[in-house]
């Protein structure tokens, strides 16, 4: 029997969740949003999702093979990056744009740093921002939703945030009428990136992540909360120029960002306290960029900037260690 005895030191039992289960859990949580994307944007959405996912997995495998490392695509992290990338692309992104995004995400912003766990920036967001800067035309060619089987042809339009920004830039105030109301925004009946349209589907996925304890409440609550507060202050000061907080919440990439992008474990702070600081930073930057920046949307930039601040936040938000709290005997 001695040949079969394991001698590892304690502990001898372990929790159930492994890395691949966590990744798979996040993918499950994204399925409602993927479903809504395909429903509103049809076949092109499906093609983009598939291309991005297989692209990311393919690039990861190729990279690891080239570097003579074990291929770890089974951990699901590349597939997850692919889905997140697709959800950050416009519905009719050309195929080469999607594949280029996959390359940037996996090769440039993940594998070069040493692979999973070592990348300082969220790979899907790096890809989105690189594409946005390099190919502004293709990255901002939005189409109005054309629900599956509705027979409607996809027509070009602007995102709600884009409409608001343009109007404010041209006339100094918000447009008098917007396409769509809050109900449409909630369900996802508006123009935007694949994963940005339905707040409801994203919230459903976010709830699943919380219940499965894959994420904690800190980042989403701090992010959304600080956005609402800051946007609310501006709105109260001048409601004709600054959109109301609900509009901020339901349009653009905020939900996707706060629930799925900012909560990426690798690139966010490790303690609850740090995550609150980080979430508030994301919220403030998002509102400032949306209201005063050159781009209508600020979520990606805000999260990437806070990714950069993560090591610093981690350093200053360490837990109070046991035995350093003054208690009276």
């Amino acid at each position, binding site marked *: *029997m*001695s040949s*079969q*005895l*394991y*001698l*590892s*030191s*304690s*502990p*001898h*039992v*372990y*929790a159930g*969740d*492994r*890395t691949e*289960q*966590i990744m798979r859990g996040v993918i499950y949580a994204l399925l409602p949003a993927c479903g809504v994307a395909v429903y509103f944007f049809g076949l092109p959405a499906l093609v983009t999702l598939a291309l991005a996912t297989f692209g990311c997995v393919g690039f990861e495998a190729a990279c690891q093979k080239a570097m003579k490392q074990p291929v*770890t695509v089974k*951990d699901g992290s590349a597939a997850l990056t692919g889905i997140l990338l697709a959800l950050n692309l416009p519905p009719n992104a050309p195929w080469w744009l999607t594949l280029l995004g996959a390359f940037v995400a996996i090769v440039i912003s993940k594998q070069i740093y040493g*692979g*999973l*766990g*070592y990348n300082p920036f969220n790979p899907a967001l790096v890809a989105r921002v690189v594409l946005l800067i390099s190919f502004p035309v293709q990255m901002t060619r939005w189409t109005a939703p054309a629900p599956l089987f509705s027979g409607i042809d996809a027509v070009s339009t602007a995102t709600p945030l884009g409409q608001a920004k343009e109007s404010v830039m041209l006339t100094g105030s918000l447009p008098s009428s917007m396409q769509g109301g809050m109900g449409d925004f909630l369900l996802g009946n508006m123009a935007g990136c694949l994963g940005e349209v339905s707040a409801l589907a994203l919230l459903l996925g976010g709830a699943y992540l919380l219940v499965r304890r894959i994420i*904690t409440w800190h980042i989403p609550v701090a992010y959304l909360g600080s956005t609402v507060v800051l946007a609310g202050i501006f709105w109260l000061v001048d409601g004709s120029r600054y959109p109301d907080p609900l509009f901020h919440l339901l349009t653009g990439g905020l939900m996707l960002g706060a629930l799925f992008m900012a909560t990426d*474990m*690798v690139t*966010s702070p*490790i*303690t*609850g306290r740090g995550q609150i600081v980080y979430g508030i930073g994301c919220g403030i930057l998002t509102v400032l960029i949306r209201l005063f920046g050159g781009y209508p949307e600020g979520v990606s930039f805000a999260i990437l900037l806070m990714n950069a601040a993560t090591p610093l936040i981690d350093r200053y938000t*360490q*837990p*109070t*260690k*046991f*035995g*350093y*709290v003054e*208690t*009276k*005997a």
Partner: protein
Amino acid sequence: MSVAMKNLKTFPGGLHPPDNKQWSADKPIEDCPMPDELVIPLAQHIGAPAEACVEAGELVKKGQLVGTAKGFVSVPIHASTSGEVVAVEPRPHPMGKALPAVVIKPDGEDAWLPGLQGGDPASLSPVELRDRIRDAGIVGMGGATFPAHVKLSPPEDKPIDTLILNGVECEPYLTADHRLMLERPEAILGGIAILQKILGVKRTCIGIEANKPDAIEQLTAATSDLPIEVVPLQVKYPQGAEKQLILAITGREVPSGGLPMDVGVVVQNVGTCTAIDDAVRRGLPLVERIATITGPGVVEPKNLRIRVGTSLQYLVDQCGGLKGEPAKIIMGGPMMGMAQLSLDVPATRGTSGLLLFTSENVPVRPEGPCLRCGRCVRACPARILPTTIAAYARLDLTDEAEAYHAMDCIECGCCTYSCPAALPLVQAIRGAKGAILAKRRKG
């Protein structure tokens, strides 16, 4: 259920491993029969090992001194039955190597040494009580095996106002303390009275996890008109760790690097308490204890009263033998116990349990990179950053590991338990602690 499960006291951090106590929780304590040979190690406690005072060929009685204490932080060792000393030599020890032991061939009489005499605690002074505890070789029986008399000798400048009895038993699988609280409450209360007299404390609490409602009920009833509080605690690992238990019950945090006496507290395990009662009232040295023999790898899990020195193989035989091929033999519980090379090592005064795992319970877990998921940080009861310290430890950056408070780690294993990337965190931190101590010694 009479125990209110809400708002129970506890500590921050920790986790909820499946407790798996159902296998043995309802099994009354059985006396383990006499093995053919008892191997009694001279090192069974923290501190200096005892020195053998018998030679091969000598006849000894049960309870007779076979090893004398070497210094203050040390305890004497006694024969756990009557018979012939057949050898005094190094034998395989649960710590992993061969260490000096007194080997006894039982004569079957199991006759106590004549003249062992109990005393009435009421008529003995605190110093006399403490001497009896020391001479009986009593150590912390929750597994820490720290000499009990040392804890009961606080220096003048550290007044003790609170005594805490540890009946938490937060390690999964183990039920020895649980059975003891159900079956020998009078001995526990007797031990408490002795400890109260030695320490002169104002407050005495028995901490019990809420998953043992029968023990809570029984001890609450038994202490109704005594100055003793039974405190039900939240079920959470490591609730029974000394500092976490003190925090939960008193709200006091033992300072980093300090001892319970720094916050005016002494903690003793309930098993230690019964041993103290036996030592003082009945004059019996510590030669036996209760241990849980359990796990998926034994046929019939049991709680046994075992003689110190009984081989693990013999204990397993008393439980119907092995079920399947054993893949891991663990002395103690699954969170902090020690894996053994074989069943041919003796149970000691610190053996609270013997856990047998088969290959299904020993999953193959390839290590991955740290995801920074924060689970180890949230679970850490010392509130340090396990992943950061482990990363430094792997790079042999001892000073950095120390700066991140590696020395505050209590080695509870929560970090490794919770890590989805299967990183051996506590293992790495243990290594760093060793390196830090070695460095300090070099000065």
